């Protein structure tokens, strides 16, 4: 179980390779990479800045990751979340899960990204032609998190 909160970019291939080699029991590795888009609905975005709550962020991510290990038989997992100013196309977040079988890896990966979106203290500010605006939480993200229960 690993968590990293960092400004720097990450190498998705290298991270997946590391987890794949972590145990000979691993039969499937699932990953999700979140990227900065250049538009949100009809407004164009030149960049976004991610702010977070140092200390609470790490605690929340650790709790969410521990919950995933409670619910699924995972051999290993990784969450990397970046902060600071990011431009379209840049990587924001990486979630990797490894298990003996694919079902646990797929489900745990989806669970982790769904929960961290609404439970880890990050906030996005978007730079648009009309100025900077804070991204509002989406009801669809709340629904996605709630489908996994409490």
């Amino acid at each position, binding site marked *: 179980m690993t968590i990293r909160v960092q400004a720097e970019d990450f190498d998705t291939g290298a991270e997946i390779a590391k987890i794949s080699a972590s145990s000979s029991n691993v039969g499937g590795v699932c990953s999700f990479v979140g990227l900065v888009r250049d538009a949100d609905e009809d407004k164009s975005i030149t960049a976004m800045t991610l702010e977070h709550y140092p200390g609470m962020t790490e605690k929340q991510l650790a709790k969410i990751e521990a919950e995933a290990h409670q619910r699924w038989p995972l051999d290993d997992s990784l969450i990397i*979340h970046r902060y600071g100013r990011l431009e379209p196309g840049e990587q924001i977040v990486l979630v990797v899960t490894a298990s003996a079988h694919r079902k646990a890896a797929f489900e745990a990966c989806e669970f982790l990204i769904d929960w961290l979106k609404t439970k880890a203290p*990050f906030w996005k500010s978007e730079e648009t032609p009309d100025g900077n605006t804070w991204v509002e*939480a989406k009801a669809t993200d709340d629904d996605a998190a709630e489908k996994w229960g409490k």
Partner: protein
Amino acid sequence: MKILYFAHFRERANIAEEDIVLPKGVEDVNGLLDWLAARGEGYADAFADRDHIRVAVNQEHVEFDAAVKDGDEVAFFPPMTGG
């Protein structure tokens, strides 16, 4: 008591963090919000819409009826938008 402000709360209150002495009679987050909102325009503006305020005490997410005491770290922020 240490108070932290994030995202638009930081911008509207125009401060990222501050140390305060917990005023007499303030025992929970609701009381603290009332007291902060009465401090001036920026604070009143930041805390006007309570449905959109989330709060953590000592880095744990809590409801507004949670107790607060001197020495606590209290953070105010909008709903989270990570990922």
